[in-house]
């Protein structure tokens, strides 16, 4: 049973560009959350998707947007990249009814030059 998978593993972009990160949840999971982990910090909640809708959002600007597909996979889009967007982006999946069991993927390392 595959766990949470994310692609790509690493990504290098320049300021002003746009990026799309992808996440496939653990089999059977219906909820996907995205977190940003800057170097030396803990993960910060970006947003969460359930039934293809954004259900909850952290303190991130509108440049950060997402999508969830009918198969529960998800994308994170970041527009107008800033140097400060350089971070590890983590995807976590869970069952809505199971608050506590969030399974994290290995992350996508985004570097903005």
């Amino acid at each position, binding site marked *: 049973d595959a766990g949470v998978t994310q692609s790509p593993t690493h990504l290098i972009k320049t300021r002003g560009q746009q990026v799309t990160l992808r996440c496939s949840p653990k089999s059977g999971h219906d909820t996907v*959350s995205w977190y940003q982990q800057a170097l030396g910090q*803990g993960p910060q*909640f970006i947003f969460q998707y359930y039934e293809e809708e954004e259900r*909850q959002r952290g303190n991130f600007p509108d440049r950060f947007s997402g999508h969830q597909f009918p198969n529960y996979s998800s994308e994170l889009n970041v527009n107008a990249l800033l140097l400060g967007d350089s971070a590890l982006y983590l995807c*976590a999946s869970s069952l809505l009814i199971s608050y*506590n069991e969030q399974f994290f993927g*290995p992350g996508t390392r985004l570097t903005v030059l």
Partner: protein
Amino acid sequence: AQSVTQPDIHITVSEGASLELRCNYSYGATPYLFWYVQSPGQGLQLLLKYFSGDTLVQGIKGFEAEFKRSQSSFNLRKPSVHWSDAAEYFCAVGSPTDSWGKLQFGAGTQVVVTP
């Protein structure tokens, strides 16, 4: 404001020695409490969680944590560390009234294990 504090940024421990990682929280009510571990190149792995009940919680890999309401703490312990325990450890909290399960993480504690 709600917060999670891990006072120790970095801890060095000898293999076979005991380990204790501190976590303090500031929250309106008793939150749900979690400990995660992150090894290089890996995602976060859940070690244990506390929702209610027995304040001493057992987790995977020989870890345990104790919830102390009076101290707003949820410290993680292991009696005897192994070299494979070298990693970064994160304490996280969630709100019992938040059905969507958003987690708020501390800044982490880096654990180095020496021979």
